[in-house]
């Protein structure tokens, strides 16, 4: 028998050996709850079963599906990229990848856990505190962000998707740049962002050279995004909140008129004097047809971040060659003025001003969630949460057949991926 098997599938024995040696995610981690679902995957909060009991964020890449059957269709370019880059880097201000687990057709990336992110800090200030972020915090967050970016850029990595949701902060106030899913090594030919990937970098943070169709771009696109993020921290809302023009049916990249206008309204229409190469860009003619604006950044900053205005201006240089580099930005005078940036960005805050902990939910992925009599402190929390989430959950599960997109669909897929009695598990959970 073995012989025939080997003829038809010579790797059978190999796989059997590997499968029996492999540790499963749930052997090593207790899943505490669900954090967020992004473009490429779903992120869970988890606790290591080691003695240290450390908390992690586990990003599970969406499993490949052909119809309803989960199958191997090849690891996505984004996952390969994120994994490959993360394995090479270590820096205090870049989120650390602890390990990658490949299991049952799914990829799990285990990251150090970060309690907050910039988006959440912004929300906390705009919704709960109704007050702007203090200069000390703003400066520390910006400084650490630039510091992590300097490391990436020195390693020739362009992040390409810097935005508040992708910049994390630990409970001890240390900034961690996350989500390298779009990052690229710069020595490789950089295609326009839409090509190849279905994802387009969030338009609000997109540099003007990209909006004007530049075929080649560099690290300066990240610096532009830092400017946007810094301005957003200061004003609690996106500084250039444009409408994205969608791809047309022929997948032509459209002219991003609205986003450009949002930028010009504050920074003025770029002149050839400040940006000589602008006239060579594909969308230059389109840009010329727009109304003319003059720069009023100074005025914008007046009420929002009077002292940081000069830095922001230099981060927002239209000409990518004149834009500050991360290294130059870190040398900026602003960072040497009081209040100085601190390693714990929240050190100056009283406890109630520190943003709240990340909310985790129970809503889907039932198979990741261990049930039962764990008895540990966290599991106690979990079962409480389960109770509150139950009605919601059962509703979702009952819809999971028809609902192709969104959370219910994912829940179904998760159950089927992990195999081993999905339905009975669901029952146990619901009952």
């Amino acid at each position, binding site marked *: 028998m073995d012989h025939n098997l080997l003829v*038809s599938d*010579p790797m059978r024995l190999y796989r059997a050996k590997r499968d029996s040696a492999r540790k499963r995610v749930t052997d090593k981690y207790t899943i505490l709850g669900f954090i967020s679902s992004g473009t490429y995957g779903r992120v869970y909060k988890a606790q290591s079963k080691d003695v240290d009991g450390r908390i992690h964020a586990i990003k599970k890449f969406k499993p490949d599906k052909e119809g309803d059957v989960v199958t191997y*269709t090849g690891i996505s370019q984004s996952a390969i990229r994120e994994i490959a880059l993360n*394995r090479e880097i270590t820096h205090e201000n870049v989120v650390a990848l602890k390990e990658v687990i490949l299991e049952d057709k799914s990829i799990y990336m285990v990251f150090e856990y970060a309690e907050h992110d910039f988006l959440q800090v912004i929300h906390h200030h705009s919704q709960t505190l109704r007050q702007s972020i203090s200069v000390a915090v703003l400066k520390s967050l910006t400084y650490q962000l630039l510091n992590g970016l300097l490391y990436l850029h*020195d390693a020739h990595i362009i992040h390409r998707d810097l935005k508040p949701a992708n910049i994390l902060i630990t409970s001890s106030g240390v900034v961690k740049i996350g989500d390298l899913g779009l990052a690229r090594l710069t020595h*490789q030919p950089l295609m326009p962002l839409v090509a190849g990937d279905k994802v387009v970098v969030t338009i609000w943070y997109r540099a003007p050279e990209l909006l004007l169709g530049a075929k080649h771009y560099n690290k300066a696109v990240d610096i532009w995004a830092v400017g946007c993020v810094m301005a957003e921290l200061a004003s609690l809302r996106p500084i250039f909140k444009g409408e994205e023009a969608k791809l047309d049916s022929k997948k032509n990249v459209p002219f991003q008129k609205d986003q450009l206008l949002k930028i010009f309204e504050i920074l003025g229409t770029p002149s050839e004097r400040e940006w000589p190469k602008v006239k060579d860009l594909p969308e230059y003619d389109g840009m010329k047809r727009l109304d003319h604006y003059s720069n009023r950044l100074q005025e914008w900053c007046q009420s929002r971040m009077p002292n940081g205005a000069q830095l922001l201006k230099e981060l927002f240089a239209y000409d990518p060659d004149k834009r500050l580099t991360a290294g130059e930005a870190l040398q900026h005078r602003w960072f040497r003025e009081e209040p100085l940036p601190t390693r714990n960005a929240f050190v100056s805050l009283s406890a109630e001003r520190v943003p709240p902990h990340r909310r985790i939910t129970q809503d889907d992925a039932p198979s990741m969630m261990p049930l039962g009599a764990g008895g540990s402190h966290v599991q106690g929390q979990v079962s409480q949460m389960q109770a509150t989430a139950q009605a919601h959950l059962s509703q979702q599960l009952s819809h999971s057949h028809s609902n192709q997109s969104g959370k219910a669909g994912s829940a179904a897929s998760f159950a089927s991926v992990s195999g081993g009695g999905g339905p009975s598990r669901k029952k146990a959970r619901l009952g």
Partner: protein
Amino acid sequence: MATNFWSSSHYKRWIVDRATLHQARYYDLQYADSPEHLGFLNIFFANLISKLGKKLQLRQRVIATATVFFRRFYVKNSYCETDPFIVIAACCYVAAKAEEAPVAIRSVVTEARTLFGDEYGIKTFPSDNSKLAEMEFYLVDELECDLTVFHPYRTLVTLCGKEGGVSLPQAEAGEADADDSDGPRYWGTGEGKLELQEGALQMAWYGLPYCPSPQAQDAQAPVRFIINDTYRSELCLLYSPHLIAIAAIYLTLVFHAPTRASIQQPASSAPSHSGSSHHSHSGSPTRRSSRSTTHSQKKQQQPQDVIGFMAGLNVSMTLVATIAQEIISLYALWDRYSEDVHADSARSSFLHKSGSASGGTRRGGVKAGRSASVVSSGTITSGNTPSTQDDSAQNEIVTPMSLVQLLLRMREQRMTDLAHPPSGRPVAVNKMLERTQAAG
């Protein structure tokens, strides 16, 4: 590659020692005809990866990465317990993604099935995409997700490419991206550049006895690059890429007489670059060539000091010499390996063009003639001549088909032994297989 080599996964986890490699081949050695055959398999597999890569139109760098993945996989596995053919396909598939030049899984399956089936009689390659995707999963796991690989190409370009006025053929010019050598050199003093004549650097890329004439640089020309050649061995697992690059330059200096002459005399007497050769690569646009030609000619007014150059690199010359010696040994072995003519028609044109007189063996010059002179000149201290000509086993010519047969035999025997071990202690192979069968 862009991140820092000394903190890279490549350096930290994937430079292994000989003992590890020996251990990795433990079972294969028991079933192979001779240890030497494992060396032939190294060549064979690298050639297969290269062929599949070319069918998929992968750049040379991607093929090199795929080969490194393959070698790393077999640091942890045995040929006789796996199916190297699907591993090869998965290596190409993953390398293309890791190097940001993805290819469709379907085309990998199709090309691999055609190549392996038609040319080597391997009929087991699965037609189902998901089987290759499954292999990809296991492969990435074996690679411990370390998918960023460093190659010697960058060092070569950094050292000789930019100011040497050398234009490389299109495929290789990709390695010479302006960004590629951007950033500080990660080894040595960061000083020292060598002006190599065009022919010499081409040789460092193309392989020793082959001094490309402009006409020979068309796409079909069966050029071998010294650096590319090193992937036919396990050197990429043993040594840092910059050392391999320096060894390749070293060999070029030793074997390429005009270069040696030109660097020992003022360059006025050295043949100057012919402008036409810059632009002769079958219509492939070259970069930097016109600008740098004048530059390099100006600089070549000074005689170059090769010894000083090598010393100035601040790397272990003993190590470089050892690597050079191993490259020569590889060529000696490779001489006795013959691709079937129908499988590699380029070879005949190589033999034709290079006009090798030594019995049609492509590495004749290196093995018989030059290696002796290297050793006698005393520059290589490790001193083992790679081959002894009179050994009768040395005259056996190994072909891909004989290696395919060997592989199948090795696996069959291994499986038989696993099921009915001579030691009498049964191995649970059947049970394991049944279990996987049940699991699908």
